[in-house]
């Protein structure tokens, strides 16, 4: 069954097709929700809520306007943001900071998605949101500002801070690594 057939069947509320879609796309969507959630349990809640939204709104999806995968990802991201809006959104700077120009060790280019996810997971939630939306999903600052209900300038500054924070984490990990080697 291709995507178009799957969409048509899901639009007709066919349980088998809906289940097939869950089986086919949930690993990808779970990966996205994990990037936004503080833990796996939270990520599952996001995924669950996102999929319910998918099936309730699938009749609005037009295959001519875009790919199913992109549409699904967008809905999961929106579900994640809704979850975050329920919590108090705080974008203040947290402790760590880094110099303006940091060279990231080449070894980081060898990191896989799991390790990178752990790295990004160390970012404070506000930074992580903007970093995910901007760098991974490719949203513009205007879109991020609309999604998070903040100013565009705030989105830019949050991203800069997120980058610095990430660099600081990398530096910290590097230092810890060398310190452990020295011992």
């Amino acid at each position, binding site marked *: 069954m291709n995507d178009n057939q799957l969409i048509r069947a899901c639009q*007709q509320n*066919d349980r088998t097709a809906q289940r097939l879609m869950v089986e086919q796309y949930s690993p990808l969507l*779970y990966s996205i929700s994990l990037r936004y959630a503080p833990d796996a349990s939270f990520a599952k809640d996001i*995924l669950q809520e996102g999929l319910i939204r998918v099936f309730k709104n699938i009749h609005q999806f037009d295959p001519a306007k875009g790919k199913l995968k992109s549409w699904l990802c967008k809905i999961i991201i929106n579900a994640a943001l809704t979850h975050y809006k329920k919590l108090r959104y705080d974008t203040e700077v947290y402790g760590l900071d880094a110099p303006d120009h940091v060279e990231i060790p080449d070894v*980081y280019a060898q990191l896989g998605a799991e390790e990178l996810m752990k790295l*990004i997971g160390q970012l404070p939630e506000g930074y992580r949101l903007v970093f995910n939306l901007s760098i991974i999903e490719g949203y513009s600052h205007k879109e991020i500002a609309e999604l998070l209900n903040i100013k565009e300038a705030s989105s830019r500054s949050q991203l800069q801070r997120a980058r610095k924070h990430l660099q600081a984490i990398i530096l910290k990990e590097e230092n810890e690594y060398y310190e452990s080697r020295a011992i």
Partner: protein
Amino acid sequence: MNQEQFEDHIKKSFDTHQVPLDTNELWSAIETDLPAEKKRRPFFFWLPFGLSGLILLGTIAFYQYDRFSNEHTQAIDQVNNNLVEHTSTTTQQPTTLNTAFTENKINTKTQTITPVLSKPTTINTSNSNTKHTTKKDITNTIQENSSFLYTSEKENPLPNQKRPTLSTELSTSVETSIKTEKVLPESPKINRFENLDVLPIHWVDLDNHVTTRPTPIPPSFPTWRLFTVLQGGTTFVNKTIQTNTNGVQNYTDLRKNTETPILSYQFSGLVGLQHQKTHWYIKTGLQYQQLNDIFDYKQETQRILYSLTGSDNQTELTTRTIRHYNQIQLLEIPVLIGKTFRNRHRISLDIEAGVATSLSLQANGRFIDEQMELGVLDKTMFRQQNWSVLAAIGGAYQLNPKTALTLGIAYQQYLSSLKVRKALTTDQYGLLNIRLGIKQVF
């Protein structure tokens, strides 16, 4: 590697990244929240409707045929009764010939007619057996036979001026009959009276306007009788509840100590068909029942309080006792087979068993906790179609030949939980119903 290259690497890494998870668990979690599927009804869903329709049609067909055959059996009985009356002695003077025949009171002098009528005369029924019986045919037949009625003026019980002109009157009567009579199915051309030594005089029946058509041979198939039952009563709910755990919330059932059954009731209107010889019957119809109950359960909820940094998440365990009010309304079609045991008195005993399927289910649940926080039970947690088995025993007291009062007890056990599989609790209902009703036989 600069920041930009590193971010590119991150983006590419996540483009196709997938994390495996248990899709069965995920699907079962979301399935209950999805809009209801418009699924095709399976065959067995329509079975009770089909069965009820067939029973209804069969009932009407049998009832019609039964009434038709009863009419003619009565007609034959009436002819025979009249003949018996003719041989008895009575002195009452009839005022007119018509009323005399209607009341089966024939003047003594007409008794002398009987030997005269012993002339082996038969009415040629072949004409009247056809669908195209005409007034002329019947009038001729009457005139032909009426000559045997009064053999002499001396024996005439009525004076000439009062005596009705038989042929005229019968013709009028026949005319009326012809106008009102429907075309009847053909019956075999058998002269039923050829072996009788007295003529079952056709004009006797003409007064009742029934002999213009041939007397059919009484049907040989068993007689079925239509009956209806209207009944209602109170229901005791016997519910076994099983609580499910979803990992975050635990439920402890406190029903044993707290359950307060409140009035539940049931009404039904059934139509049935009973075999007259064996007293077996089958009945179906509609059954409405409302089930109410109150019970408590303890809910333990584990909540994770996420901190903004994600580093110092806390787990909070809250416990609350919830009082649950359940109201379930069911509209069902039962199909029951049973047998009636009669005695010589007016009391009979009915034993029956069968199945029922629900046409619709309306659930109205409310719950309230110690802090008086209200909630509403999600209606999607209930199944719309449920199957159950029933058994009942009851007595009937006959008020008159066609009406009886009934009193009985019935037990209905649902074969599955009224709630869907993924609900937090699954309830298996058993209903004990005590009911009073009225039975009408047609």
